[in-house]
């Protein structure tokens, strides 16, 4: 029983960052319809920003997280403006190839700048974990969960309660009509891609210090993000959050009770199962943002 409780705790920590990855991708892939192969690179980018700010510049750990979010936002905006805006209206295959190219180029740039050796980030948290009866959890992981939960709530409020969020939803439900209401549709596309990218960077910045940081770390994260989006239904924010936690639970249980080698296979198994049994995702179409 205590082993199961421990898995649940781990699931919460992992699920929070998976939810961030999933929300970011559901905005871009689910509602903008861009098969975003750069999502994993943005995750890696966020982790390296953490490394630069904490290890190379020697600044505060807690300052590094907002820096990573802003840097991810900026890189996302640059990708949208330079690669996607000129391709607006071209078919999905063209966009996909360009995004694959961007993924390879950016990953190679990471390798070129920082080398292939894995890096770690020192954290201000105590080594000894917090012990609660039969289970224990490290302070760093608790912080990761709290920060992820905060970012999820902020994103939810941004999309559902602000004028920008309203314009985003309107644009992806009916672009022409949104522009008839006075919405600058180009600006909404750039903002949405930038917000999605900043969430991927935030997930990387949060999980980077938990594990180690290396140029290919985003590849697996990207696959997991696609699994979460497919599981939750395209464009469904709540679905992405729940999907993130379901994937985390499946990974924890798969690793704990089957074999730790199966951890990363769970995402692929979920994609296969969802596509066979419920291709629209677990949650209703009516919950879609766009």
């Amino acid at each position: 029983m205590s082993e199961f409780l421990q898995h649940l705790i781990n699931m919460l920590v992992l699920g929070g960052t998976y939810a961030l990855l999933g929300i970011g991708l559901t905005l871009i892939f689910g509602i903008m319809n861009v098969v975003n192969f750069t999502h994993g690179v943005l995750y890696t980018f966020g982790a390296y920003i953490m490394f630069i700010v904490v290890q190379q510049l020697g600044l505060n750990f807690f300052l590094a997280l907002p820096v990573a979010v802003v840097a991810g936002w900026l890189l996302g905006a640059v990708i949208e403006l330079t690669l996607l805006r000129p391709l607006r209206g071209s078919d999905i295959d063209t966009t996909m190839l360009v995004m694959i190219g961007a993924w390879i180029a950016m990953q190679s740039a990471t390798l070129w700048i920082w080398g292939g050796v894995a890096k770690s980030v020192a954290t201000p948290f105590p080594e000894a974990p917090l012990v609660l009866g039969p289970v224990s959890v490290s302070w760093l992981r608790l912080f990761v969960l709290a920060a992820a939960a905060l970012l999820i709530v902020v994103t939810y409020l941004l999309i559902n309660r602000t004028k920008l969020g309203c314009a985003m939803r309107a644009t992806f439900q009916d672009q022409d009509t949104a522009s008839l209401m006075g919405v600058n549709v180009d600006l909404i596309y750039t903002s949405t891609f930038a917000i999605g990218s900043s969430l991927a960077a935030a997930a990387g910045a949060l999980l980077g210090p938990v594990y180690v940081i290396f140029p290919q770390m985003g590849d697996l994260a990207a696959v997991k993000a696609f699994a979460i989006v497919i599981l939750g239904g395209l464009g469904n924010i709540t679905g992405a959050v729940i999907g993130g936690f379901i994937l985390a639970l499946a990974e924890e249980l798969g690793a704990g009770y089957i074999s730790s080698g199966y951890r990363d296979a769970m995402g692929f198994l979920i994609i296969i199962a969802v596509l066979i049994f419920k291709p629209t995702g677990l949650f209703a179409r009516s919950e879609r943002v766009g």
Partner: protein
Amino acid sequence: MLEVHDIVCGYGGVTALRGISLQVQAGQLVALIGANGAGKSTTLRAISGLVPPRSGQMFFDGKEITRARPPRVLASGIAHCPEGRRVFPHMTVEENLDMGAYLRGDSAEVAADRDRIYQEFPRLAERRRQAAGTLSGGEQQMLAIGRALMSRPRLIMFDEPSLGLAPNIVERTFAIIRRIRDAGTTVLLVEQNAFAALEMCDHAYLLENGRIVLAGTGAALIENEHVRKAYLGG
């Protein structure tokens, strides 16, 4: 108020408008009639900036709006209530109305305008928290009209407001459009129901194959032999 000079417009290789000129005087209700595919909707889409014209010029209150994008056209005072209602289906009734006021910064006034729309259409008030996609066709039409009014336009363009609605709702929609004109807002109406449009308008244009072939008062067009034969069923 609105002057359109010799607009040519097309999608890809197809030319939809072959030189359209028309005028809308302030305070009038002007109707644009014609068959399916004659270019009525494209004319409205060209005016509101959704389809930039290949040549020609457009002026609103003397200011050129020929290649202005939709947000600028709306800001200059022209609202476009599109064909098929086009409410945002996954947004609530209230969010749809607020989208109509997207460019306005005066939130107290916007709230007051929203209350006026709710008074006018009590069904919308009852359903303000409901997703617009769940409303009936007639309710969606009321919402689309209300949303267009939320920008406080000086000219409002309606594209086929009667399309797909039950006869009693059609009556009601036309009554609302007349009331909007009587309250001082200029109206440009595109309508397939030629008789109803000609009966209520001050001035009308007949479009055929992307050209204006006839213009005059509504009464004059109703009497016209060609209009009677081709559009009024005898």
